[in-house]
């Protein structure tokens, strides 16, 4: 039952974000820059603070070697970040030829960070994983799983079954988060992986959920496809 070729491809961030856009999955504003001046131009059109991330087929774990710069509050920061990212990449043996460029993105914050993941299971096909991001997922393993297709009502149930759900629901007088927007995003992710059959794994991590009514945004994405 296994395909004879098992080759997998990690889409780069720009390709991944295009896919999100195609399916109406909200993301933070960003642009792709090959050069420093392009980076400055993009930065000029975005709202500060910004984030810059390297785009290179040779670099899988960007943040592990200085491929990500957060909290850029000025054009000067942007220029410096561009140089630093390139220098860091070089230090790790990635030459400029292998660097496609960088993305410049608006840095977002909200009520909570969330995760939406998809894994193509050999038996059941697309399995959706939702949870609160960061330590809740990594240390507490607080996630809900669902096998596609999923009804909207079941997606709500998955979200509400999270131990951390109160953090989205006005826990201790904090802001109530936009759970309906999160559910909508999960639905769109499900549509996307159903249509885009080659997608084998997907992580939207983190997704920033804002106050109820203000939506939620994917701010990092990672998509692996079959060749």
């Amino acid at each position: 039952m296994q395909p004879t070729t098992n080759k997998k491809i990690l889409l780069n961030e720009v390709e991944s974000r295009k896919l999100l856009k195609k399916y109406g999955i909200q993301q933070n504003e960003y642009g792709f820059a090959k050069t420093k001046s392009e980076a400055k131009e993009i930065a000029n059109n975005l709202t500060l603070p910004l984030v810059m991330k390297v785009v290179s087929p040779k670099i899988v774990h960007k943040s592990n070697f200085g491929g990500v710069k957060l909290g850029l509050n000025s054009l000067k920061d942007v220029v410096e970040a561009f140089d630093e990212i390139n220098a860091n990449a070089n230090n790790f043996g990635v030459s400029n030829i292998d660097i496609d460029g960088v993305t410049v993105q608006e840095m977002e914050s909200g009520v909570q960070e969330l995760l939406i993941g998809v894994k193509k299971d050999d038996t059941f096909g697309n399995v959706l994983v939702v949870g609160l991001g960061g330590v809740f997922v990594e240390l507490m393993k607080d996630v809900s799983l669902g096998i596609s297709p999923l009804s909207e009502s079941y997606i709500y149930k998955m979200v509400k079954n999270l131990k951390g759900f109160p953090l989205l629901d006005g826990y201790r007088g904090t802001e109530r988060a936009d759970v309906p927007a999160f559910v909508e995003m999960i639905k769109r992710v499900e549509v996307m992986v159903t249509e885009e059959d080659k997608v084998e794994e997907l992580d939207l991590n983190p997704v920033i959920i804002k106050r109820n009514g203000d939506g939620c945004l994917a701010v990092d994405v990672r998509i692996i496809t079959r060749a």
Partner: protein
Amino acid sequence: MTNTKEALDAAFKPKSIAIIGASNNMSKLGAADLRKVNDFGYSGNIFPVNPNEEKVQGYKAYKSVLDIPDEVDRAVIILPTKHVLKVVKECAEKGVKVAQIYSAGFGEFGEHGKKIEQDMLSVAKQYGMRIIGPNCIGTYCPSGGITFTDSKNPVKGSIAFVSQSGGIAHDVVSNGDTHDIYYSKVISVGNCIDLDHSDFIEYLLDDSDTKVIGLYVESVKNGKRLAKTLSKVTPNKPVVILKGGRTSAGNKSVSSHTGNLAGDYEVWKALFNQTNTLYVHSMEEMFTALKCLQYLQVNENRNIAMIGNGGGASVLATDVCEELWLDLAQLEESSIDELHQLGVSESNHNINPIDLPARAITANEGQTFTKIMSILANDNNISYILFHINLIPLSNYMNLRETLSNMFKQFDLLDDLNVNVVGVLRTNGDPKLIEEKLNATKSFLSSKGIPVLSTIEQGLFGISMMARHGENEARKEVSYAADY
């Protein structure tokens, strides 16, 4: 093309069977298969196929299935692996509705075997024949006179079991009589090159003899179809699954969080939750669940009343209740008054659980006990009653068989029970006591729809399964979005 229903009708209740590989050498598997259906009382035509014999075990033998003059509903193929493909083709040509391939050594042995499986499937499809297996011990159906075991007890029941392990299919049947569990159908599915888990489950949904479905599964080829099938079946009949190979898949190296979080068994659990399928972690739990579910009257509440002998036992039972999310029922005032009048309870003590010494349980030939049961059974706050009797003190000072017989005859007074009653008859494992327990169960309790377990923990686990299914039923139409 024989449709699935026709094929499985032929597998469970065939008008005629061909046993290809039947033999007079009683140490051979093919000999055993013929002997077993014969002993089991199969009443249709039996056609042994064996090129070297005139007669097999008294039946006229045929050189080939193609030589059989009559129609053949079901063929069983018990031959060395290398002969199987040819015979499958002959069966297909003959117009056999379903061929069950006992022989092993195909897909499970690698690519070559997989190729033969594909060839068998092609020829079967060409002629419209369906295949069960290969690598399976077949079907068991008391009402059709079909069996794969030496179990001589042809009692018809309402539980169906689908097993991906031949050994477990065997165990299921051989444990039936001694656990007071009786089956409508049991099937060993083998490699599922044609008919698979989902086919069997779907068939059982429409099978009027079947009330509850159990499943032992290690892997399925088409998970999405299984999910769809379960969603269709569970609103109508409870399905209980034991998944084998929960942890064996090993950790393939995965490159994303999601891959790490969605381990194989986690995905299966998602399936169970999404489709309201019940699941268990051992065959012991499976037997308990099936036994209880066959008598379930759907009830969405989890309120339980308990009565029995043994103070420590009551304390432990209360703990297990809470651990299984069962609620000790708050009795109606009228019930409490009646218990006071009977002298069972006083002020706020001994109302639920009720601790009743052995002597009180058996007093007046069990009339007091039955009276209490009747009070509980008529209390609208109670959905489940668990009674537990430790047989050891009873056996110390009375004739146990007579005592139990007198007691449980009284249960006839409990007409039209509108609660679910589960009984626990505790023993110390002494074979003699176990025999008395089984006798009481079969003679009195099972006819009243009361499942009997061996420990209080088992009884409560069974109730938790019933309650879980009851909730699923009640929740069928609820939209979770609506209550956000």
